[in-house]
């Protein structure tokens, strides 16, 4: 079993057996009760990379069983075999559109373990990146929600609006999506003033074009019809099933890690937590729309703060140590020297981050001797709210599956890791 090379075992003929992760009893029950079992996905225009097993009676979903794991990429195992620094791109991959937040969580766990104080400028740059990713992810989810409802314009416009965000991330980090820009102790490069100015201007573009988007999609009567009072999760249910992030807030719980356990510079900028009491698909969507507005405001404040700060000094001296003179504003040339042999002290280090879709937990267990983690646990928002998503489907109509799916913005690569 050990040292087993992965070999493929796909028969040439399409397999005849469907491996359902449900007891045979379920199917038998369904057929005896004259219910209809529908499998949605993974190759289905209205599903992501997962399968949903639905038992429907007439048009009403009696029970939904998830079949995740189609994008399970063994991240936790791989992380146990790689240097701490090599895990940054690895842990970025669950949700690449949310690059800022996802890497931030992992890096903060390391910084917490090493007791590293991040320079002020780096904090703001990280925050800008995180908020850009948040807007980007919310737009992405809005696009997916729209296409699930058959609204193609509602798909194209958010993706068009992601284009300036991607452009901003490219100018900051040099790559469109997977920036891997945040490193323990700071960020990889300083961000020049011209780029920050572009980021600030981008927020105005977003604001302007989102107004048209609001008219054509957010306040579109057909959209309201489709989403309102659909897939309701009450406050108690949402807590019980461990729903996170905007979806928890849509059910009336005022919980945002950025406010509860502030990190970076979130306690020095002013912003609000949008919450709603309805807990239906539409308020789940509206909460995220409002969050975009809040993120825009955070970005503007952060850019203003950065304006008054001198350039340079974006990596902490605690981590650079003897290279702090040469590398504090540009890590080039010292990357491996500084980070190649990071060893965390013994213990467990858990960090919570508010990623775009909700709480993101990293838990690193270090033995204090190796330069690789002994065990790295990552739980992504998608995995948290999968249970709530399944419960929200119960009792809704078959056509509502896509509306609820889209309102949760469920992204299987993120959930499966």
């Amino acid at each position: 079993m050990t040292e087993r090379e992965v070999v493929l075992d796909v028969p040439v003929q399409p397999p005849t057996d469907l491996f359902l992760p449900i007891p045979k009893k379920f199917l038998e029950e369904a057929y005896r009760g004259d219910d209809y079992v529908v499998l949605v996905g993974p190759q289905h225009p209205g599903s992501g990379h997962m399968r949903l097993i639905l038992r429907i009676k007439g048009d009403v979903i009696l029970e939904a069983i998830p079949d995740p794991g189609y994008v399970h990429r063994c991240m936790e195992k791989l992380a146990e075999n790689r240097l701490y620094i090599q895990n940054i791109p690895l842990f970025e991959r669950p949700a690449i559109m949310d690059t800022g937040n996802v890497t931030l969580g992992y890096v903060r766990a390391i910084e917490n373990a090493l007791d590293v104080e991040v320079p002020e400028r780096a904090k703001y740059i990280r925050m800008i990146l995180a908020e850009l990713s948040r807007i980007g992810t919310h737009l992405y989810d809005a696009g997916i929600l729209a296409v699930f409802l058959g609204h193609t314009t509602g798909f194209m416009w958010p993706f068009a609006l992601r284009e300036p965000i991607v452009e901003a991330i490219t100018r900051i980090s040099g790559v469109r999506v997977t920036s891997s820009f945040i490193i323990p102790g700071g960020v990889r490069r300083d961000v020049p003033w011209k780029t920050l100015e572009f980021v600030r201007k981008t927020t105005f573009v977003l604001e302007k074009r989102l107004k048209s988007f609001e008219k054509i999609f957010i306040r579109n009567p057909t959209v309201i019809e489709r989403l309102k009072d659909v897939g309701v999760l009450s406050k108690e249910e949402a807590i019980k099933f461990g729903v996170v992030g905007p979806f928890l807030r849509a059910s009336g719980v005022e919980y945002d890690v950025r406010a509860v356990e502030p990190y970076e510079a979130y306690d020095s900028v002013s912003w609000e937590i949008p919450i709603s009491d309805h807990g239906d698909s539409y308020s789940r969507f509206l909460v995220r729309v409002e969050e975009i507005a809040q993120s825009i405001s955070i970005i503007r404040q952060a850019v203003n703060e950065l304006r008054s700060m001198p350039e340079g000094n974006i990596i902490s001296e605690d981590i650079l140590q003897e290279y702090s003179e040469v590398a504090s504003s540009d890590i080039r040339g010292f990357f491996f020297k500084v980070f190649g042999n990071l060893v965390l002290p013994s213990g467990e280090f858990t960090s919570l981050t508010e990623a775009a879709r909700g709480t993101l937990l990293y838990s690193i267990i270090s033995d204090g001797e190796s330069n690789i983690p002994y065990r790295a646990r990552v739980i992504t928002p998608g995995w948290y709210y999968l249970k709530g998503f399944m419960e929200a489907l119960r009792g809704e109509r078959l056509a509502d599956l896509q509306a609820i799916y889209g309102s949760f913005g469920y992204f299987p690569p993120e959930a499966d890791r």
Partner: protein
Amino acid sequence: MPELFGVSDILDVISMQHFVQNMVSIPLIQPVIDFLLQIPVLGYIVALILWKPMFALLIFPGLMTLLTVLLFIIWFERKLTARIQWRKGPLEVLRWAGGVIQALADGLRYFFQEVIVHRDAHRLYFLQFPILIFIPVLLPLLFIPAGTIVGIKSPYSLAITVAVVSLIPVFIVAIGWASNSRFAYIGTVREAFMYFAYEIPFIISVISMILVYGTADMVTIVERQAIPGIILNPIAALVFFITTVMATSRLPFEIPEADQEIAFGPFVEYSGIMFGLVMTIAYEKMYILSLLMSILFLGGGNGPAIPLLGDISGVIWLFIKAMAVMVSLAFLRSIYARLRLDQALRVSWTTIMKISLVSLAIGVIINLTTVGVVG
């Protein structure tokens, strides 16, 4: 009258003279036609094509226009949607013309693609229904008058057209049944439900227009439209338009085919040219209903006559009006999300039903007040 089918009669019917008597007149190219008519075989063919019923079947509003419209409207819909969505749409295939032949490329690709008949399908029905469906699609075109050109004149042409058009969903249900697939089954049920949703308001709006004009003969209807029907009975026009949207399963009522929900519903298992055929059904239906709408509400082939074009003038007016209706149908696609089945049913059985009854009332009033004038 059995003697009508005597040999001489048949010869008379198929003689060139018979065609020439009832020929489309186009003053602009009349010399050319006259010249062509002199040539023995070619002349006969030209006469046959220009014979009004044959012209209606083959050229307008029949096959040729249908095909052109199909190719055009699919491209146009994609292009308009793209424009609204801040992008370009099909382009590179023929750049200087904005990629207008995109649908042709797609069609060719479908044509040469493998046709898969899956194991569970009812093979015979699976293959024949997409072809049989052309009967209810093409038949109404014979009754639609384009100015003076009309295939078959009948006092009941409007009723026949509406009846034949209502056959299309039956064929779609049959297609879904022959596919024997889970999503096709759900889609078929949805199609059946939608049929019930739109058919009654649709027919009521047509009846109210019959009352307004006092006849079900489309030729007469067009003649009597000094004032377009849309002004006489705007409510009926609204109902007709909304039910057309439902009948052609355009957004927001694209419920039976809902690709993100049930993966194209009845058409889920079709591939290659068979899919090409079933996919165009909705567009063909849209074409017929747009023609019908322009005849009932927009004055059909009426319009300032262009003397040089003769009979073609009416054709052009009708075409422009029908295209305008189709474009507005295509426009909806980029504005609306898809409603749910139960919502669509609720809308049609409450709101639309109510206003369709109002339109009927208007029709009755107009009928009673004008019966002496036009009747």
